[in-house]
């Protein structure tokens, strides 16, 4: 126990897991930032995106493994992202938007309803049996000074980093990204600037859903694709978003990574039984809610005048 190599091994495992949580957490946090509402169907959007990715991949990858399989994998991922983006926007338009001026509970219940509808539809259309998504490359680990790293982990890290940097640049620098921040800070004032808040909300759902589909497709290589695959992962990513400070984009990234590390190191170093691994997230949630309810990077809500 405790050799340097082992430490880096867990670090690597924790970072990849955390990166996945972070990608999913971003969707929760961006939607919350603008609508002050938790999209409980987010995990199911992830699941649908993973199915679409899987079907696309199986349809186009061909017989033999080669460079094309890798390209096909990314095309499939893109298909899943696009489909989920459209699905996210459609759900917002149909199930949430009409309730925007209703009580706060209404869209929340609607989201839970959408979540059930999506997972039941998936089970009905595609069956409950989990489907295997084949690696597009040889996934035998590479050993680096005693640390085993799989190509899958490298893929996850690379995609996560690219997505996060792209998102951060988009939100900080682009015209639409700034409008997104303005809308989440103060929707009415954003409208006064000429910003079409409805359009910004739709874009937010599209981006969040596409990121979730990406995460789903990446983990599907390991955990397979099944109708309830988004439930636990989604819930934990939601916890990550709260831990980081819900509504805060950097917070979601931080919360996701932290949660991944916590789960990995919790089991490996603290000796938490593997069976209790899923509870770590919720213990972290309770602690953060008690100690710093606004989350690590969140700002304490001030009463609006």
């Amino acid at each position: 126990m405790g050799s340097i190599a082992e430490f880096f091994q867990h670090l690597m495992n924790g970072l990849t897991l955390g990166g996945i949580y972070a990608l999913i957490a971003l969707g929760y946090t961006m939607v919350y930032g603008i609508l002050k509402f938790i999209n409980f169907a987010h995990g199911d959007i992830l699941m649908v995106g993973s199915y679409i990715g899987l079907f696309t991949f199986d349809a186009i990858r061909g017989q033999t493994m080669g460079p094309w399989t890798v390209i096909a994998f990314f095309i499939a991922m893109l298909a899943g992202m696009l489909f989920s983006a459209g699905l996210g926007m459609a759900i917002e338009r149909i199930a949430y938007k009409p309730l925007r001026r209703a009580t706060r509970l209404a869209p929340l219940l609607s989201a839970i309803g959408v979540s059930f509808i999506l997972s039941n539809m998936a089970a009905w259309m595609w069956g409950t049996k989990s489907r295997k998504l084949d690696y597009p490359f040889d996934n035998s680990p590479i050993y680096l000074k005693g640390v085993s790293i799989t190509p899958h982990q490298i893929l996850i890290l690379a995609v996560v980093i690219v997505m996060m940097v792209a998102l951060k640049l988009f939100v900080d620098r682009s015209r639409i990204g700034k409008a997104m921040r303005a809308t989440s800070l103060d929707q009415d004032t954003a409208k006064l600037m000429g910003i079409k808040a409805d359009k910004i909300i739709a874009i937010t759902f599209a981006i969040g859903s596409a990121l979730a589909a990406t995460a789903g497709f990446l983990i599907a290589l390991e955990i397979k694709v099944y109708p309830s695959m988004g439930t636990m992962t989604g819930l934990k990513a939601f916890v990550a978003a709260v831990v980081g400070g819900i509504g805060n984009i950097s917070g979601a990234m931080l919360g996701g990574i932290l949660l991944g590390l916590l789960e990995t190191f919790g089991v490996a170093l603290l000796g938490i039984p593997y069976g209790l691994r899923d509870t770590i997230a919720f213990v972290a949630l309770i602690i953060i809610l008690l100690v710093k309810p606004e989350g690590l990077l969140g700002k304490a809500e001030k009463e609006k005048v």
Partner: protein
Amino acid sequence: MSKLLDIDSISVSYGSIKALREVSLHVNEGEIVCLIGANGAGKSTLLKAIVALEPITHGSIAYQGQMIAQIDENGAKKKFGVPIRRSKGLSSNLRTDEIAGRGVALVPEGRRVFADMTVEENLDMGAFLVRDDELIARKKEEMYDFFPILGARRKQKTRSLSGGEQQMLAIARALMSSPRLLLLDEPGLGLAPLIIQDIFEKIHIINREDKVTVFLVEQNASIALKASNRGYVMENGVIVLSDFSTNLLENEKVRAAYLGDS
């Protein structure tokens, strides 16, 4: 003089509270017009109604001779118990962003600057509808010249600005879109007299040199009336007086109720 803004008998309700009752007023091109009234009179509600942040339940609002909000005799259609801002039968009702696009800028009550953004980003948001980067850069420099304190703070997060600085930023942000009609909701609220004076001087310059029509709401009746051509007095959601500002300054009722004379 042509009417830039023509409000005809509008009403606004918050649930069962009637905040505005058949209010009519107009603002001519090039004027500075003020609306004075006590707390809760409905001044902010009127400004929000003009920019469609609150739906009207009666009457109509015309801007540049075109209807931007209009309610038929049946009253607003309702959905989930609240009046909806835009229904298919009332295609003339514009959304807030569309009204902004026609050149109406509101400096809202309490400034409402984007606290997590820098001064410069706030100005960028004000120019959201201006698609010309060079023009935006030029406008920003103009604003930094006009409000030097903002130039010095351009990279600073807005939350660290003082109240007066925030008010100037809110005005500068509104001016970034080169509006034709500038609506100001209590620009002097909570500020020191010297700063209020400075802000009203700026409003004058904007009106005279940039030909921006100004409609401002104030509780501070004396300063508002001195700064404007015409004024309206509102009580409990109803316009009770309207006249040239010079006359209102002499009016006994106004003097007693709003200028602190007894």
